[in-house]
């Protein structure tokens, strides 16, 4: 029976009241109840997601003083901010850095999380909880706070890591002053913070793989690599995809690590979309152009989401 045609258990109608009985019937319809139950969620989504997104798009079409639409030369009026960004070297450097940062960090987090999950899975249940708790610590500390701790370790003048390097006779490293070291520093902090999330997701996925599959593979003489390749990975494929997508979205929109560690320096080479959008929009007082910068994340992430979710859907269909 269709959900909207179904009724909650009948109640006795008020005698002699046709209007009341219609209302009661309407209220008893499951579709009505469903709409009522989802209304708070819809209100939240409209208020906190759709409205800010729509307002952000609207802002990006305005001129700096927000008195009218931004004129453009080769794009339609209203897209002038995007046109300017297309022609800005700094913006393309930011786009490149955002991709380097997000892709490298997500790959490293996935690999480290995968390895940690396997290590944890092999520990007896009794001792596992303790390790699980300890490994989750980086993920539960607010990133702005933990990044400050990392900043002290990378401090240009008084880096504790460099101090240790000196003790063992290794040359000091300009963690935040040189292009590639600064990029690496940001990735290290993001991986340190984000790898536990992958670990816990993969651990949950590993625990859901039926033991019989491994036993069957062992009877067939599969090596440990073959078990990983043909049993574990296919069984975890969906959770890997979803986790990678989720992390990609969060990493792409990361702000606090860059802001605290390098402020985009040296020479704007560590800026990501969010930190650059803040610099252009809030610090430089050009909110429409800042909104345009931040909107560039949307198509990139939408394409990633499309392919990842399509893969998940396909695999689900194959398994059905």
């Amino acid at each position: 029976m269709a959900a909207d045609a179904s009724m909650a258990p009948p109640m006795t109608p008020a005698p002699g009241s046709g209007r009341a009985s219609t209302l009661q019937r309407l209220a008893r319809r499951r579709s009505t109840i469903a709409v009522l139950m989802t209304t708070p969620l819809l209100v939240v989504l409209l208020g906190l997601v759709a409205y800010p997104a729509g307002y952000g798009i609207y802002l990006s079409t305005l001129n700096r003083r927000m008195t009218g639409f931004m004129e453009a030369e080769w794009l339609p009026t209203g897209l002038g901010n995007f046109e300017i960004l297309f022609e800005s070297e700094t913006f393309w450097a930011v786009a490149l850095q955002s991709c380097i940062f997000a892709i490298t960090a997500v790959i490293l987090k996935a690999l480290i999380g995968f390895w940690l999950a396997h290590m944890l899975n092999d520990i007896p249940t009794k001792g596992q909880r303790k390790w699980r708790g300890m490994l989750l610590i980086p993920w539960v500390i607010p990133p702005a706070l933990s990044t400050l701790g990392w900043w002290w370790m990378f401090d240009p003048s008084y880096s504790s890591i460099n101090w240790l390097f000196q003790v063992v006779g290794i040359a000091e490293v300009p963690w935040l002053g040189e292009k590639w070291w600064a990029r690496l520093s940001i990735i290290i902090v993001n991986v340190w913070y984000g790898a536990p999330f992958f670990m816990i997701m993969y651990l949950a996925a590993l625990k859901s793989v039926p033991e019989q599959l491994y036993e069957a593979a062992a009877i067939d003489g599969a090596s440990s690599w073959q078990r990983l390749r043909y049993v574990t990975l296919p069984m975890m494929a969906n959770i890997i995809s979803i986790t990678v997508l989720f992390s990609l979205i969060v990493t792409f929109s990361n702000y606090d690590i860059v802001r605290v560690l390098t402020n985009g320096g040296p020479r704007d080479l560590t800026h990501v979309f969010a930190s650059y959008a803040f610099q252009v929009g809030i610090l430089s007082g050009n909110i429409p152009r800042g909104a345009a910068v931040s909107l560039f994340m949307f198509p990139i992430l939408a394409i990633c989401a499309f392919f990842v979710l399509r893969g998940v859907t396909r695999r689900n269909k194959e398994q059905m």
Partner: protein
Amino acid sequence: MSGLKRRDLLLAGAGVAAAGTLSAPMVHAQGTGGTLRCGFWDHWVPNGNVVMRELCAEWGRANRVDVQMDTVTSNGNQILLTINAQAQSRTGYDLMSFPAWEPSNHQRMLEPVDDVMRNLTQKYGAVTPAAEYLGKPGGNWVAIPAVAGTQLKPACVRFDLMQQHAGIDIRAMWPAQNAAGPTAGQWNWETFAKAAEACHKAGFAFGLPMGSFTDAVDWVGALFASYGAFLMDDKGAITVRNNAKLRAAVEMCVRISRFLPNDVWAWDDGGNNRALISGRSALVFNPPSAWAVAKRDAPQVAENCWTVPMPAGPEGRFAPYLPYFWGIWNFSRNKGAAKAFLEWLSDRAQAERQTNGSGGYDIPPFTSMSDFKVWETEGPPVGSVYNYPVRAHHNSRTSIAMAPAPAAMAVQMYNQGLNTKLIARIVQGGESVDQALGWVERELNTIRRGG
């Protein structure tokens, strides 16, 4: 009693309440002047907030206005976020502290204060030039240059190290008296570069940041101004190509930056403070806050510090100036009281109390107020910050980096640190001067488009 029903009782009660409310006079919280909600910058110096609270209470009592004061920190750019949020929502404080570029950014939403500034300039004379550039975009004052939070960034010199390694007696050059020393004429960028090299060789490199934070942008901006080197003119035209003055300034800055610590490209606004306080550096450009912290944490360093004006260039001497402003939102419901309060806060007596409360950190906007006693008496060594405010014998003008470009564009150039990045591309990125100038010209074009 049985005749009085519940409904009648409620009706009678509501009637009495309504009559009482309608007939009552409008009574404000403290007096008849209403309420004034103020969002002041959360001062670095804890006593700065104490003094401001006292002043709010004092004026409120005298004028029967309920002055409510909040402090808004600039950490994490909270003050900028608050300003933008209030501008978007058109609600919030009646008056606020605005960092340097914000009056220009929000000029359409600020109550003009030409009348207040007219009264103040009649009493105290001209306002320092950089404050006028920032607070008077389009020819009208949109905010009042504040005392609390306004800073200059002259040179804080370790006179012992400077004497020992560069052979310069900086205290004789700039003594704590109202006249320059006999050798003050030699205090130019050429002398400075030689001293930077000498101190670098001795292991006490000057602590000059070269990132995109304000301390870096400000000192490089002052150097550029002293060479007459500007990236954009006051009409918004880009002045990079074939600009001999700009090239000379860039070359001098490149020369100096080769004698700085290797990590200056990653320094934030605390980098130079740490360099001075740790005893590693012979000179920084900073307000006396670095020296004040050294008094507490490294007294042997503080005892050897002496504040002097910036070196001069071919076009004069410029003092890096980073002010706060007091602005009144045009949606304020108590503009009259706000104006009266801010005018009173800017009066000499109140200005001196603010400066004293901050240990001399706060700089009043009127050049006639450069003679507060606090700068003569603070120490050790006594007289260390005598030359912190711009004094007549300095032959110096206040400036902010990227001026005289129109403020709407200058703010973007400033916050993106175009001047320091220009130098970084040459020294750190290995580009030629021409390549780096080409890059900055393209960046300026993107800023100029769409204003």
